């Protein structure tokens, strides 16, 4: 059963989260033939889990906001390793993309004047996140899905792409298996858009679903694309820590946006103890002012719980390490204290944070309107990704585009909360538009039969080893434990070097894994195939991290705990070498356009 079905499209979109759906919508029309492939059912992609909101300078909740402030906040949050043109386009276009969602049926929470309401989030100077309670991602994906199914593109759900096909240096399509029956499908296409999301599943403790295995990162890497900033992972400060089975599940930053405070075992609000200089002018140094900010007082400065995620996560680690953690190895997140200020605090919490209320009630037996939550850092988001042209989203491989979490550049060394959902639609649209243009200007590429034969063989190899091979779930878990220990939130040179060595052993183990029975919906087989991208991504992370000898954003190097200005001048680039091994180099950051530089400086004051 090595045969396959061939499909032909102008544009092939791989991934049906916010980025992929928006790209498919844009590419369709004008007679362009578009296919959308996803590993899960439509509407189940990671985007559905996003909670807190979508950043856009609508200026509804605070009329002082503008695209330029949003731009400056994004650059500061990213510690200036961002692609400044992407940050500019994102800040300028996000508001239109939010309004467009409303035109397609999204129902955001409202201001008293009847406009789209916006909430506070870390690193954003003004109230900027359009939201629907704490289920904003569901609203976004459902709106795009329900609009998208009437736009004429064809959906292939529960199809997994295992490799990109190449015609010389240009992308020629993708090879996939269908999950329910394991049949093979060859998608020949003039342009391919990767919108495959993140890679949190490289780690043991993560907020990501099983899909977050970094497939797009690995597919692009193997196709020869340049990858940037792979050392930068976002460890979200607040994941659940108890009970063990839910460890890592996200607790939205919206809790802190609504006034939630972080406390150690002594009851101290430890975030007041360490406020970085870059933020001291916008951060309150007392409880009273912090609360006024939450209630919308424009004179007040932000509470320190809303500092950027990398910083908050490290403060939490410090409290835990120094013995002031909670019983199960986290710290306390307290939202019930707002009853000191609000009459119907219980009702307010349930209205603003309904899914957090249910999540804790049902999974941990904790009533957040009365008790504090126990939280700790969880692997959440990858800032690094496929290097793309800011305007068109084309990678360094002709015909191959990328958008959303799998693309790199917008967020630099650290992403601000809410800047992902807006990223998805801003750059999803652009990728769709330019991929369609590319397709109309190019002929159908040629398929290399030899490559296809190699792929089918590799894909079926785990069956040949059968029961004698190692269980793929066990190899996957070993890899996740290794990455958690060697490339986690606090890194050292010695541990990363060990990690790279262990990775070679894990690669060897992966080559011996075997699976039972047949190709029908077989999670063992599917997991065996996920090992390849997981290993490639883990190696990219380790290779990039070990040589950034400073601490910046999502990369904290314990041997070099300070930020180093010299290292702020380059991005890490990973690329597959001619001999098939992974190479790393530094690429100088081009000078920021003078008008944008001016905006940055103005906002530093």
């Amino acid at each position: 059963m090595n045969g396959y079905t061939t499909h032909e499209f102008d544009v092939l979109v791989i991934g049906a989260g916010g980025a992929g759906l928006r790209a498919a919508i844009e590419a369709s029309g004008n007679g362009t033939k578009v296919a959308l492939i996803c590993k899960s059912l439509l509407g189940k992609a990671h985007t559905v889990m996003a909670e807190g909101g979508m950043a856009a300078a609508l200026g509804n909740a605070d009329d002082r906001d503008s695209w330029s402030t949003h731009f400056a906040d994004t650059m500061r949050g990213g510690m200036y390793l961002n692609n400044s043109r992407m940050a500019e386009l994102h800040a300028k276009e996000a508001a239109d993309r939010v309004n467009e969602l409303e035109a397609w049926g999204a129902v955001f929470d409202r201001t008293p004047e009847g406009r789209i309401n916006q909430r506070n989030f870390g690193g954003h100077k003004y109230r900027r996140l359009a939201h629907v309670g704490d289920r904003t991602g569901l609203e976004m994906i459902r709106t795009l899905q329900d609009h998208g199914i009437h736009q004429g593109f064809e959906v292939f759900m529960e199809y997994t792409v295992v490799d990109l096909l190449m015609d010389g240096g240009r992308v020629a399509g993708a090879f996939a298996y269908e999950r329910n029956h394991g049949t093979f499908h060859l998608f020949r296409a003039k342009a391919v858009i990767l919108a495959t999301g993140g890679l949190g599943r490289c780690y043991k403790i993560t907020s990501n679903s099983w899909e977050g295995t970094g497939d797009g990162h690995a597919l692009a890497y193997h196709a020869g694309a340049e990858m940037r900033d792979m050392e930068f992972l976002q460890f979200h400060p607040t994941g659940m820590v108890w009970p063990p089975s839910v460890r890592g599940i996200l607790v939205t930053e919206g809790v802190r946006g609504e006034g939630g405070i972080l406390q150690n075992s002594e009851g101290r609000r430890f975030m007041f103890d360490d406020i970085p200089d870059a933020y001291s002018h916008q951060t309150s140094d007392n409880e009273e002012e912090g609360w006024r900010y939450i209630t919308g007082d424009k004179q007040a400065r932000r509470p320190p719980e809303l500092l950027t995620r990398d910083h908050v996560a490290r403060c939490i680690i410090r409290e835990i390490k120094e013995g002031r953690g909670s019983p199960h190895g986290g710290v306390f997140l307290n939202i019930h204290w707002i009853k000191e200020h609000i009459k119907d605090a219980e009702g307010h919490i349930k209205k603003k944070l309904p899914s957090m209320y249910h999540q804790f009630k049902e999974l941990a037996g904790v009533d957040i309107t009365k008790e504090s939550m126990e939280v700790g850092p969880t692997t959440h988001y990858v800032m690094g990704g496929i290097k793309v042209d800011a305007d068109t989203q084309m990678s360094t491989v002709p015909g191959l585009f990328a958008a959303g979490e799998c693309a790199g550049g917008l967020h630099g060394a650290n992403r601000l909360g809410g800047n992902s959902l807006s990223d998805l639609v801003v750059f999803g649209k652009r990728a769709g538009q330019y991929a369609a243009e590319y397709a109309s200007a190019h002929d159908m590429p040629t398929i290399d039969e030899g490559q296809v034969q190699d792929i089918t063989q590799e894909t079926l190899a785990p069956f040949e080893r059968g029961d004698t091979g190692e269980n793929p779930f066990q190899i996957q878990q070993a890899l996740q434990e290794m990455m958690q220990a060697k490339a986690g939130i606090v890194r050292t040179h010695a541990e990363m070097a060990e990690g790279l060595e262990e990775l070679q052993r894990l690669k060897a183990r992966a080559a011996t894994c075997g699976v039972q029975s047949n190709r029908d919906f077989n999670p063992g087989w599917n997991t065996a195939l996920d090992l390849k991208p997981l290993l490639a991504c883990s190696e990219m992370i380790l290779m990039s991290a070990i040589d950034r000898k400073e601490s910046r954003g999502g990369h904290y190097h314990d041997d070099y705990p300070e930020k180093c200005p010299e290292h702020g001048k380059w991005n890490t680039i990973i690329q597959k070498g001619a001999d098939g091994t992974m190479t790393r180099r530094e690429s100088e950051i081009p000078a920021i356009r003078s008008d944008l530089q001016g905006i940055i400086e103005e906002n530093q004051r």
Partner: protein
Amino acid sequence: MSKATFRISRGSGGDLTPADYEIEIGEGMVVLDAVHQIQYEGASDLAVRWNCKAGKCGSCSAEINGMPRLMCMTRLEDLDLSQPVTVEPMRAFPHVRDLVTDVSFNYRAKKSIKPFKPRKPDNADGTWNMKQEDVERVQEFRKCIECFLCQDVCHVLRDHHKHEEFIGPRHFVYSAALEMHPLDTEDRVADLKKAQGIGYCNITKCCTVVCPEHIKITDNAIIPLKERVVDEFYDPLTKLFRMFKPKK
């Protein structure tokens, strides 16, 4: 640590045999953890659909001890572990393998519903004004995570297999979300009556009982839609009145 036994339906294409797995269980575990544990300990080919493991995506629907539920939100502490816990696939859809069914019917049913069609924007910048109290009704329906548990439990689909004539409670919730959207101008009432079979629903409320999002499917979605059908088709005066009245 204590042990528990899970009796999981295994097989393909509806040909199912229960298989017992005994595993160690830990604090706070949910049924989906147990299934993963069983995969890890040897049954790597045990088919199960899941994504978020946090009750947000609606992928992991199954029948646990005969009740349609999300596997990731069913805590072992809430089950009687002195007996084997049965885990079976949903029954209203064609079976694929083990705990996985073919839910594509739902995607076809949704496509048959006319899409959102907004009125002209209120503001020059192309935006609209809506009050929070005017959107709350619709926001309840938009919480739906498309787990299809309500479809699974509805006798019109489960026992009478009216899949070609009846779109099911999930899609009445979806229709209601569109029909009651303050900006929408489309009319879906004729479709609901004819092609989408709302008349088959005899308000047993089984769907409301199983909804993990606690959407009041029958009271808030289906009954108001049925009233619209009655208004439009059986009450000539209202019908006439509606023709001249702007919608909503």
